């Protein structure tokens, strides 16, 4: 058994390694090394925990068994999961962190002596506060992530679920959580502890159901942040530096990602969280939609346009992920490149269902990352490009965000696709996107609509090139 001081130093080292793991992600070259730092940090933290216990009895054997059990499930999932399912996977993983935090808190509440926190019914006040916050945030993370997972997986409708009195109800529940924690700390009653967990599960569920599918990037980032704060709460309870550092890192990471996503939609965090976006708007727009003329074409026309272009910009969106068109797309681009056509990719911050979703899919299809550009980097290039190929994106290209102050997406940064000499728009129908509004781009003089499944259309174009 090693001393408490030595194990504290080990935990500090693993905390530092976790910082380096995130630091590595500043560029793809250093990222793989960063991941190894993360793994090393985890090994050190677990080893330090083993060494600081003097209980190498049968219990220890079971610890190893459960690690191997969970580890093999995790490894199996990690190798089997298709890249398009990454948002669901991340949401699912968040729910597990949340639930693990809840379980650790329950265990510490039932048996505080094992953690040096006092006796059952007489837990140190500070520890009890930290424990209840960790447990409540963990429970919210769990049920919220489960709903996010179900929505992303399509097991639950992606459209917002709203009802009357939703916001006052949520507010009452949130206030009651604070009151319950206060009462729990003054009475140490175990019934209150269970009620706290139940109510926290409930509010996690209620908070996520009104948020629609395309707002999921914000939701996932937010839950990412919550899982960090839950870990930090438990870290304070256990007086463990590695957990406190990690919790703070993950918490701020998720918060920054939510901020970036909200900015990408020009909406405030509260606007997203209160939900219901896209549920009511759009009904007024539907009536005049049919009257405007639309130019539609086939794969042959598209191939002709692209063959005569000297530069093409590809704008992928969630539709590309749904149609699994990334490989077909890269094949098309390879053919274009053989004809000396310059091709680059333009990624909107909120394209897809999670931050960086499109980048991962393109990377999977072997698209070199130095051909993929963020909105600010590439937006000025549209004016000089010959063809914009929009595949599965919609709202993020809508020029109405720049022109119509009445529009729900007004002010949202959009890709200046309309500045291209011609625009090819692969879409299954003229239906409006998530924001429930019509896209003016469909009716522009230089737009050619390609009504088809994204993957099939891309393959057909390649054949015609």
């Amino acid at each position: 058994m090693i001393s408490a001081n030595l194990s504290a130093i080990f935990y500090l080292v693993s905390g530092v390694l976790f910082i380096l793991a995130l630091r590595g992600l500043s560029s793809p070259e250093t990222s793989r090394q960063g991941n190894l730092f993360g793994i090393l940090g985890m090994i050190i933290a677990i080893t330090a925990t083993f060494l600081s216990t003097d209980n190498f009895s049968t219990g220890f054997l079971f610890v190893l068994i459960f690690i191997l059990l969970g580890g093999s499930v995790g490894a199996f999932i990690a190798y089997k999961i298709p890249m398009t399912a990454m948002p669901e996977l991340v949401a699912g993983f968040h729910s597990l962190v949340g639930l693990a935090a809840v379980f650790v808190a329950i265990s510490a509440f039932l048996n505080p002596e094992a953690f040096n926190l006092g006796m059952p019914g007489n837990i140190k006040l500070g520890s009890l506060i930290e424990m209840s916050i960790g447990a409540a945030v963990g429970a919210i993370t769990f049920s919220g992530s489960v709903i996010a997972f179900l929505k992303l997986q399509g097991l639950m409708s992606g459209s917002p679920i709203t009802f009357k009195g939703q916001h006052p109800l949520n507010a009452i529940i949130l206030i009651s959580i604070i009151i319950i924690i206060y009462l729990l700390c003054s009475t140490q009653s175990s019934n209150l502890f269970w009620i706290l967990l139940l109510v926290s599960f409930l509010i996690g569920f209620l908070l996520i159901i009104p948020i629609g599918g395309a707002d999921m990037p914000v939701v996932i980032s937010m839950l990412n942040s919550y899982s960090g704060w839950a870990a930090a709460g438990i870290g304070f309870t256990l007086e463990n530096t590695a957990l406190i550092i990690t919790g703070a890192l993950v918490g701020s990471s998720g918060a920054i990602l939510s901020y970036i996503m909200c900015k990408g939609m020009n909406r405030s965090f509260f606007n997203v969280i209160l939900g219901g976006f896209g549920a009511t708007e759009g009904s007024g727009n539907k009536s005049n939609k049919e009257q405007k003329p639309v130019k539609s074409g086939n794969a042959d026309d598209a191939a002709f346009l692209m063959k005569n272009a000297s530069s093409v910009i590809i704008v992928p969106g969630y539709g590309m992920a749904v149609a699994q068109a990334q490989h077909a797309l890269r094949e098309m681009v390879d053919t274009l490149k053989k004809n000396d056509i310059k091709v680059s990719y333009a990624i909107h911050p909120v394209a897809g269902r999670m931050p960086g979703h499109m980048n991962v899919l393109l990377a999977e299809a072997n698209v070199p990352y130095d051909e993929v550009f963020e909105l600010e980097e590439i937006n000025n290039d549209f004016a000089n490009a010959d063809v914009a190929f929009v595949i599965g994106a919609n709202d993020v290209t809508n020029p109405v965000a720049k022109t119509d102050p009445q529009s729900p997406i007004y002010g949202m940064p959009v890709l200046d696709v309309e500045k291209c000499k011609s625009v090819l728009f692969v879409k299954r129908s003229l239906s409006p996107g998530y924001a429930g509004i019509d896209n003016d781009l469909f009716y522009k003089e230089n737009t050619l609509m390609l009504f088809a499944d994204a993957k099939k259309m891309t393959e057909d174009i390649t054949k015609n090139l």
Partner: protein
Amino acid sequence: MEIDPLIFRLSIFILSIFVGYYVVWSVTPSLHTPLMSVTNAISSVIIVGAIIAGLSGSSDSVFNTSSIFGFLAIALAAINIFGGFLVTQRMLAMYKKKKKDK
């Protein structure tokens, strides 16, 4: 008067938030998905709490209500640790630079 150790932990916490803030802003947007999966993996360091909980039983009775929750938490955290790091590794291996000869 001695300073409560809680203050030290709070200092570590606050400073780590700032470290996290600057480190995460420097993450390139194209790696935001791996960022989420790796933060997921590292937040599962909560397994250290779960291990303590799992070992809280005595040598004659390994399982009591408290340790059972500990064991369950170990399994959940282990799924995340292995799953999170491996899927991150898998994703990062896909990010390649342009080949010159193309």
